[in-house]
């Protein structure tokens, strides 16, 4: 049987020009497909990372009845949650937040948004909002400003406010009473999400709690960072058992669009690869058809001397597989080199967008590809190349 593999391998080099051409075509196809997958991975990871870093963290805990309406009265006991989290090894950081709706007013205008009360030291470990504040735009509760509020640059523009500007904050406490107080702008942040920027502001937890009429230990939201992104499901399951009266959600559940992006990414990648594989299959079939039809006489001779049809078929399959493997190795190597290069510098796709719009993710994509993607491409290309030989084999054995 070894002779069949030997013949299959050597047959590749019989028509060097033609084999070279199909190897180049498949190699470029594999490179395009795998690099496309790596760009798609990089883009979706950038979207996930942006949302996780800026908005959702890995997991969040809320009181069961706490909803998007941000009911102040639906709070949790910090000590209970803190004690539970300390028992879960995978949990690395947690930020215990207050959350309410508020109206921010200046002499110019008013805007309604979600106000998040945080402890700076906890918050900077679960969120990167602080890192988006430029050097001329204040800080994330680092200055000596009394009752600072951190708002987005876009909110500041709408309110016609700047650093140290006074902002009147109106909110409803747990008993429904309207509370008003004055804050000063302490920092201006800017994420890649216009939607988030227009709807979110941060204050110190200690500055907010007196106006909410809730206990000192009350919290509305806990943002959690786990050791490994892939542990989210496992941690969610553990926490659901430990805190049955609480609502625990993963990053993609907190922001349904991410669910959609995730699904779309999977479908788009699948369709992209499917199209690529169909094209690859057709060109491989044509190549093998040409290759075997001109050797019909040789196959007939092999059959006459005792090489059964299944062995001839195996030889053609192996010939295609070897060709594909050589091409695939080149294509995947090119992909590794390209990913290695651009994973550091990134590829800026800003030119695709209009300058002022921000869509919730960075325009710089850092392509990434993991072994699983390589295995998928390897298996699929191998399978498609075997399928592509069926028609030529049928023709020859006829």
């Amino acid at each position, binding site marked *: 049987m*070894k*002779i069949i593999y030997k013949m299959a391998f*050597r047959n590749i080099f019989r028509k060097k020009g033609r084999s070279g051409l199909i190897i180049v075509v498949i190699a470029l196809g594999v490179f395009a497909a795998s690099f496309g997958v790596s760009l798609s991975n990089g883009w979706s990871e950038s979207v996930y990372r942006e949302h996780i870093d800026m908005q959702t963290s890995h997991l969040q805990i809320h009181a069961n009845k706490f909803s998007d309406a941000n009911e102040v009265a639906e709070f949790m006991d910090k000590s209970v949650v803190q004690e539970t989290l300390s028992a879960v090894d995978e949990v690395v950081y947690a930020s215990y937040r207050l959350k309410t709706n508020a109206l921010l007013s200046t002499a110019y205008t008013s805007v309604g948004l979600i106000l998040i009360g945080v402890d700076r030291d906890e918050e900077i470990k679960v969120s990167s909002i602080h890192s988006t504040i430029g050097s001329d735009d204040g800080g994330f509760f680092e200055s000596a400003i009394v009752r600072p509020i951190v708002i987005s640059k876009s909110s500041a523009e709408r309110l016609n406010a700047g650093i140290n500007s006074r902002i009147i904050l109106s909110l409803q406490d747990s008993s429904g009473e309207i509370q008003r107080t004055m804050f000063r702008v302490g920092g201006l942040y800017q994420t890649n999400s216009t939607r988030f920027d227009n709807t979110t502001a941060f204050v110190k937890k200690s500055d907010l709690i007196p106006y909410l009429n809730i206990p000192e230990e009350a919290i509305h939201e806990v943002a959690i960072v786990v050791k490994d992104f892939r542990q989210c499901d496992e941690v969610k399951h553990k926490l659901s058992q430990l805190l049955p009266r609480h609502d625990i959600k993963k990053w993609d559940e907190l922001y349904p669009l991410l669910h959609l992006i995730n699904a779309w990414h999977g479908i788009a990648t699948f369709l992209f690869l499917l199209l690529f594989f169909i094209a690859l299959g057709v060109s491989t079939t044509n190549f093998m058809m040409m290759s075997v039809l001109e050797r019909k*006489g*040789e196959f007939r*001779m092999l059959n006459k*001397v*005792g*090489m059964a*049809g299944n062995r001839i078929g195996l030889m053609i399959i192996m010939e295609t597989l070897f060709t594909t493997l050589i091409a695939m190795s080149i294509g995947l190597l090119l992909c590794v080199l390209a990913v290695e290069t651009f994973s550091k510098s990134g590829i800026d796709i800003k030119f695709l967008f209009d300058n002022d719009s921000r869509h919730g993710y960075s325009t710089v994509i850092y392509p990434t590809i993991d072994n699983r993607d390589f295995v998928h491409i390897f298996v699929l290309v191998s399978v498609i190349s075997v399928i592509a030989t069926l028609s030529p084999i049928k023709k020859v054995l006829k």
Partner: protein
Amino acid sequence: MNELKDNDKSIIVRTEDLSKSFLNGQSIIKATDRINLTIASGEFTAVVGPSGSGKTTLLNLIGGLTTPSSGKVVVKGIDINQLKDKELVNFRLHNIGFVFQLLNLIPVLTVEENIGFVMELQGADKEQRIARTAELLELIGMKDRAGSRPSTLSGGQKQRVAVARALASKPLFILADEPTANLDTEAAETLLNTMLLLNEKEKITFLFSTHDPRVMNKARRLITLEDGRITKDERYVR
């Protein structure tokens, strides 16, 4: 030839009323017509006749490469036309060696790999293959070309390698279709001498078609075909 008894142990091939017809437009052409023939072990037989007399068809029928329109071919007591495709390929692999007029060798294999090819298909072990290949290379006088590719060989050398490949697996008999057709006098002479040597030394049975007088003169039995029928069956002591 035909007077040989069926129970003669030396008979390896027997044909009974073997006919093959082809349709050519509206007319039917009888390539072979009710041929009754036996081939005994160790014979060196040439099938001769003019072009279109049915020589190649007869060889193809005996080798199981063509299905007869009627009659049968019995090899080693087995009616080969009753075998299924796969069984027939396997039967050929183990019992019949072939030498064709053209396109005998596998271009991507070296001379020694070509010779060992059939043995490898048969599943012979490596040592056995190497020993037999070396022995045959010696016999055909091409030991120094063992590692050469067929494209670097002359026509005569290619045919000698084909003969070596055909008998590498020690088949029951070898069918050779016009083996010297494309060879010059010297190459044809060398090939025939090689075949004769193998016939004598290894007791290999050769059945070959030819219209080359040089080959006819070496044959010990001449079967003459005309219009698909045997018109003469003569034996010679050479």
